């Protein structure tokens, strides 16, 4: 019975997909589990954008979009199950939404010839497209984030932070360890002193780390946190009266969920971002007309305009634009994952294109190429304003320190290429 049902279901999916000739996208989302508060807005944004395309334009290039959502609960094993169960359905691109699952999928998806877009997470050196042929992490990665964070400190200190103390509070996992190398290299260049403060999963207990911050009085605190860890860290910072404007989080530590629990104490907290926040864009009117008013909004429909919703929307927009590019290159409307990969590799996002989509100034302009799968590393800083409950952009999109990052990326990707027996190249 059990076997029959599963077989029937699998067979049904496999049989149904090619017959309908649609573009299949997958969303490995997590609406449950310890990180659900952050997973829901992202998943909603991702889903709503594709719903909008289907409702308003009839899909991408005339092909309807079939979005398969699979719940991972941020759990690697479930992520593998999701990948295996959806890859047969002609999925064009994977958004693993977890550093752990991304590391898992990098070799698997490469072997299967399916592109992965780990937007603002995952393995940073995947920027080197000559080694990571199927992995994309545009428009920005963690090392860009770390570099722009330091750049922001330079800006507010008149270009000199030598002798300053910078503490990094990070999730003690692959994700949180990502920026350490970059920050160490930057410390050599700019002469600041770096302290590392790991926080173990899930991060509800941070008293000792913040006690250390209270004792050492670092001039600035950077944070690589996720889920409940962010809220606890911000609350602890408020408790020890740490000046909020000296506390900068990565983009995954910069959502409304993270700052609201601390109330007006969190006012002035800064975060890095690679896209705009808020709902003041023409596209959101379309979402209201074609998605929300028709009752087709994903989830509860109450997340529109939040930082993470916009990130999901942005990810979906980039995927759809890559699909359009691929349709243009290959002169076809029905796509294969290999064609989608070409589309992603030739993706170019310009201000004119974003304006046309109804998202003027929403993200940086960038161009993907075989050598560069990671965009130009343009990152901006936003600051939380408690009174208006909104994130205000306080800097332009500025480029990370390429002199420091490029050698690091070359080194790390070369190590991976050696480990995985890859000959780097564009063919």
């Amino acid at each position: 019975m059990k076997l029959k049902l599963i077989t029937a279901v699998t067979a049904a999916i496999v049989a149904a997909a090619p017959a309908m000739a649609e573009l299949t996208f997958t969303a490995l989302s997590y609406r449950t589990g310890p990180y659900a508060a952050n997973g829901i807005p992202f998943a909603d944004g991702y889903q709503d954008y594709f719903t909008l395309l289907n409702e308003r334009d009839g899909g991408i290039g005339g092909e309807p979009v079939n979005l398969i959502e699979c719940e991972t609960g941020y759990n690697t094993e479930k992520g593998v199950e999701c990948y295996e169960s959806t890859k047969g359905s002609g999925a064009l691109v994977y958004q693993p939404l977890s550093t752990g699952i991304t590391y898992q999928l990098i070799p698997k998806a490469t072997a299967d010839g399916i592109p992965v877009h780990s937007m603002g997470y995952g393995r940073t050196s995947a920027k080197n497209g000559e080694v990571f042929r199927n992995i994309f992490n545009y428009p920005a990665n963690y090392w860009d984030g770390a570099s722009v964070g330091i750049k922001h400190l330079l800006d507010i200190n008149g270009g000199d932070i030598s002798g300053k103390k910078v503490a990094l509070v990070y999730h003690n996992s692959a994700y949180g360890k990502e920026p350490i190398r970059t920050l160490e290299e930057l410390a050599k260049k700019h002469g600041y002193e770096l302290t590392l403060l790991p926080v173990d999963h899930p991060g509800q207990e941070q008293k000792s780390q913040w006690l250390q911050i209270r004792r050492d009085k670092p001039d600035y605190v950077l944070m690589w946190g996720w889920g409940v860890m962010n809220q606890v860290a911000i609350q602890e910072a408020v408790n020890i009266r740490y000046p909020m404007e000296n506390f900068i989080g990565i983009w995954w530590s910069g959502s409304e969920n993270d700052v609201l629990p601390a109330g007006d104490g969190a006012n002035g907290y800064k975060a890095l971002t690679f896209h705009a926040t808020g709902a003041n864009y023409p596209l959101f009117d379309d979402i209201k007309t074609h998605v929300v008013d028709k009752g087709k909004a994903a989830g509860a429909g109450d997340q529109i305009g939040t930082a993470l919703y916009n990130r999901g929307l942005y990810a979906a927009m980039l995927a759809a634009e890559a699909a359009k590019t691929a349709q243009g290159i290959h002169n076809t409307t029905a796509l294969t994952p290999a064609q989608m990969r070409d589309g992603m590799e030739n993706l170019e996002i310009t201000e004119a294109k974003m304006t046309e989509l109804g998202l003027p100034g929403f993200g940086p302009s960038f161009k993907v190429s075989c050598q560069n799968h990671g965009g130009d590393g343009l990152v901006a800083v936003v600051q939380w304003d408690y009174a208006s409950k909104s994130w205000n952009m306080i800097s332009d999109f500025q480029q990370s320190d390429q002199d420091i990052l490029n050698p690091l990326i070359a080194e790390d990707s070369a190590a991976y290429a050696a480990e995985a027996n890859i000959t780097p190249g564009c063919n």
Partner: protein
Amino acid sequence: MFYREAGDFKTSYVDDNQTFPIKFDRYRYYAVLFVAFAIIPFVINDYWVNAVFMPFLIYSIAAIGLNILIGYCGQVSLGTGGFMAVGAYACYKFMTGIDIWWGGELLFRLPEFNIFFSVLMGGLTTALVGVLFGLPSLRIKGFYLAVATLAAQFFLVWVFNRVSWFYNYSASGQISAPEHHIAGVAITGPNADAWAMYLFCLVFVAASAIVARNLTRGSFGRKWMAIRDMDIAAEIIGVDPLRAKLSAFAVSSFFVGISGALFFAVYLGAVEVGEAFGIQKSFLVLFMVIIGGLGSIFGSFAGAAFLVLLPVFLKNTLVGALGWPTDLAAHLEFMIVGALIIIFLIAEPHGLAQLWRVTKEKLRLWPFPH
């Protein structure tokens, strides 16, 4: 009618002592082995291996290991996740060539081990670590021992996160299995075929089950059970508690280590210790043992099947067949699995293995129960 001893004549002690004394049972066992080894590898695909068979097989080994410790020897352990991590990291170090450093200089590097021996070394290393953390069991029992093994869980995860030697100094702290072959066939890495990974795990599962079954039937198993039932009485009749308990820890950890090594190298390919081998893994394996049935090898398989296959089955039914939203399905899954666990434990506190035992008793009498 078919399931009975009558008519199956044994003419030697070896025959009399075999694992499956009833003919029907024996043929069923051969049939299962035949299907598993000779039929499934030909029909299997990536989805079935990665979502169903590999987790089931690997968790079965872990459950067998923990069952030896808890079910046969009566020593409660909450350190399974940590011991699986030891197996995984030991396997990783052996398969990438162990490097020994002294004073900042590379002293020497062992050659890379074959994947089969890497997994075995993972098991052996874990056995050593298990004995070390089993030492407190000589003085403390029950809940207190559970707490001591809980310390092992957290300590081991901390060590693998903290000491970069274990993950070959990679920037992310992740370990990922390079491609390894046996006789030219890729077993680990992205290019490994479904059937190869499946067969590789199956060999370990079959060997583990046979070894475990025979250990528990022999003098070792009897000593463990004596300790479990009443340790003072066991000591008085001549069972050495030191050797019995530590051997149980060693054997149990060996199996758990093998499952950890397979979990990392063959199943996932890349792991991060806190996420893959956290405390929830310890509880998951513990639940498998309890639901499957304490002190039963079959129970270990049944428990692993229950907890691995049921969520996948529910997901495919609720989301795939009925088209429900994924979050609703995921939450319902928790509720259904949780409710089933409670119902099972109330209806049959001795686990699925006991259901099987009762069935067998009934089968003996069928179709004339009077």
